[in-house]
């Protein structure tokens, strides 16, 4: 933990064994810390805290109330104002640590982590930014500024107005995480979401990054595993498209068709399906609720990216459990894209 002197919160925190307060790590940062503390296999991650944002905001004079009235001006300031030197040092430090991690190259997911999102009654889902495939020091700084600016997107400002949160002082943290490039992405339900059968773990899986399997735009493989790890059913889906990372120097992702000859093949072996089901079951036990889990397999290793209660099983009492939503990266959500598109096209 990098202390910021005088006992004030640090600018950045490497996530590990301990839970971290939502007030300094934001909703996503806090839930990611929780996932890690539960011993879930999650890729290496760091949070640039709300203290970092506040130091930046102070140095650029963004705390004055009048500034809040013109989101566009604030966004321009956030994009262009000089970075205070302690923050420059912090960003360098973070980037360098990712650089020495094992792996072919640095590829980071940078995500805004608002202090009010995922706070139970308010979802803020998709309001803030995720930038995938960040591969340079300069790119990291740009991505951080973009996440900060997302706090002042027209939609976010409208949302706060509608929710009568205008008087509160919004703050934001940024989660920076090693991107794992899954060979196979999956979504797993620790109970059957349709029948409610608690003995059946249901997995949907497809090739490539997770967008395909969470967006509903491809027909993934559908696997049912019982408590003993036996495959009850394996229905091969066509898996029409897969999402891939752009090759360097590109920093985005692209969708490519799955070769015809592979559309009829299984994305998971029986052993892999059983292993994933068992990891999911043990996480659900620790969380204390049936979970909807996103994850992937990279170089044979299983990683989990996000876990939350299964919404179709929720009753009113379960809403409170949303607090326990734990999330990681990358889970490129379909709605992220569609909403950002709306934002761009909004008058």
């Amino acid at each position: 933990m990098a202390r910021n002197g005088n006992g004030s919160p640090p600018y950045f925190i490497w996530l590990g064994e301990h839970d971290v307060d939502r007030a300094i790590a934001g909703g996503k940062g806090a839930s990611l810390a929780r996932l890690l503390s539960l011993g879930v296999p999650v890729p290496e991650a760091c949070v640039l805290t709300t203290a970092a944002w506040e130091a930046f905001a102070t140095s650029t004079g963004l705390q004055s109330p009048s500034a809040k009235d013109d989101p566009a001006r604030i966004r321009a300031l956030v994009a262009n104002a000089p970075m205070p030197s302690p923050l420059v040092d912090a960003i360098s430090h973070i980037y360098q640590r990712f650089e020495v991690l094992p792996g072919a190259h640095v590829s980071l997911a940078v995500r805004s982590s608002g202090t009010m999102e995922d706070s139970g009654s308010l979802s803020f889902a998709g309001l803030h930014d995720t930038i995938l495939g960040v591969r340079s020091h300069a790119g990291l700084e740009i991505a951080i500024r973009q996440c900060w600016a997302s706090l002042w997107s027209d939609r976010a400002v409208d949302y706060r107005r509608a929710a009568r949160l205008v008087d509160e002082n919004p703050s934001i943290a940024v989660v920076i995480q090693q991107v794992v490039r899954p060979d196979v992405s999956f979504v797993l339900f620790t109970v059957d979401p349709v029948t409610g059968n608690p003995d059946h773990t249901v997995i949907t899986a497809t090739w490539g990054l997770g967008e395909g399997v969470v967006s509903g735009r491809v027909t993934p493989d559908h696997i049912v595993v019982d408590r003993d790890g036996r495959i009850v059913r394996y229905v091969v889906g066509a898996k029409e498209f897969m999402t891939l990372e752009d090759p360097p120097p590109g920093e985005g992702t692209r969708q490519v068709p799955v070769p015809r000859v592979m559309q009829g093949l299984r994305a998971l072996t029986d052993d892999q399906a059983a292993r994933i089901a068992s990891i999911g079951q043990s996480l659900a036990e620790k969380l204390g609720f049936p979970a909807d889990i996103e994850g992937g397999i990279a170089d044979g290793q299983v990683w989990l990216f996000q876990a939350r209660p299964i919404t179709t099983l929720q009753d009113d009492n379960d809403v409170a459990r949303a607090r326990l939503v734990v999330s990681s990266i990358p889970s490129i959500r379909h709605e992220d894209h569609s909403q950002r598109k709306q934002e761009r096209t909004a008058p």
Partner: protein
Amino acid sequence: MIVESTGTGTAFPVDWSSVSVTGTLTHDRMHFPHPISPLGSSLAETAFVYGHRNASREYHMVMEFQTITINHYRFDGVLPSSPAPDIAEQGRLAEDALRDEIGRLLERWHAEHFPSIEARLRQLRAMDPRDLPATGQLAMLDEIHRIASDLWTIYFRIVFPMTTAIQAFDEFYGEVIGGSDQDAQALLVGTNSKSVIAGIALGDLAGSAHSLGLEQLFATTPVEEVMSQLGQSESGRAFLGQLDGFLEEYGLRSDLFDIATPTWQEDPSFALATVASYLRSGYDARAAQMEAAGKADAAVTEAREQLAAYPEAVCQQFDMMLQAARQAAFLQEEHNFYIDQQGLALVRLVVLRFGNDPVRKGLLASEDHIFMLTGDEVRELVASVPTPELRSNVMDLVSQRQREMEIARTLEPPPFVGQPPEEPAGASNPSLRGMANFFGAPPQLSDDPSRIPGNPGSRGSVTGVARVARTLDDAKHLRPGEILVTTTTMPPWTPLFGVAAAVVTETGGSLSHCAIVAREYGIPAVVGAWGATRRIETGQQITVDGTKGVITLH
């Protein structure tokens, strides 16, 4: 029946449409550009059809091979089997069967196909009907027929999955990496197949001629006289010893799919002409093979780099399909060497021995006249007691057939008989699509008199002097750096690719033998260029663009 034959025969040629045909039968110009002998036809009509039927059933392929001979030209086609089975279900079974098979092409070749081919070739080598009574000779004819049928069954067992493997790889490559079939094919060269090795052996023979100081002799002696000239000197005789070794190993091949054509062992003039070409051009077959293999390796490395961002499963699938396609590219030449070439050559040599008895009895003027009879007629001849009447009937029949063959050579057979071919629909599986790429797109016509469109065969563009050769015998005159223009090329032609600047054929597609070997030799090729041998003249300047598949006349 020969015995009842009047000797006058029926009118020749018959009207192409006078033969009743179910469906569409096309003239296979790629394999049979010239008239085929009656005995060659009989063999095709029995062994080839039998093999196709056997193997296609094994792979659940729903089709029936049909072949007929009209005016000594072969027409064939495949029809759906009747009664019509559940096509969709059979299609799935066929795809599964072929998919299983392409994963173990080489394994099955080594464990099963090659040993059975070798055993049958050994049997053929050992056969000699000359001292057998008629019953023994008839039994031997049955045995030859059985062996030929087995060989063609093995042939199709290899050809169906082989074509599927190459086509499936081309399609996979196109889907994940993009580019043309030819980009995909660039990864499949350098497979060290028998065709390439035979070319290298011929190169070594040229190397021997060089070190024996025979370059002058080869450069100044007409090819017909080279043999006798070589016999006159010690170094020449040393070379002839090596030539015998080469022919023993690689000489069981002939120009075409017709057992009436002499093998290189019987007539080594083409091998000698190629040695002369290699000497003139300084072509180094070994270096060329190394270079081709190096290029393929580089293309594979580049493709793997392009796949770096893909999931592991895609990379594994790519490697698996590449391996299958490389095995298939290897087997394409390998099976051809042992079945098409050695198998047919050995059948020819045994059948020639069946001509020995009739010649002694005065029924045939020459052993090779036996090829002018059909299979049934040969059996009848073997079983008959020689009488003056039989003698005159057989002699008449042979000369009638010889006259017909002469006339047939001047005929231009129609592209098909029967119902007009349907528009080529997108074939439903990689095997059928592969077959389509083997035989090539239907002929294209161009309004521009200076352009002949064809199918891209091998990349690159070259401008040079054309050498039009309709037969391997014509092709002997090819000079280094000339562009070979021909109807079709069979594997025995391939050593010429070492000295030709480019090659043009009137038949075939990107998976045809000619295209594959041209890529192997790294020379541009346009295949399936309809009318090329008529529209181009020897000596004419032409540009061959193998990337686009177009020939420009200057």
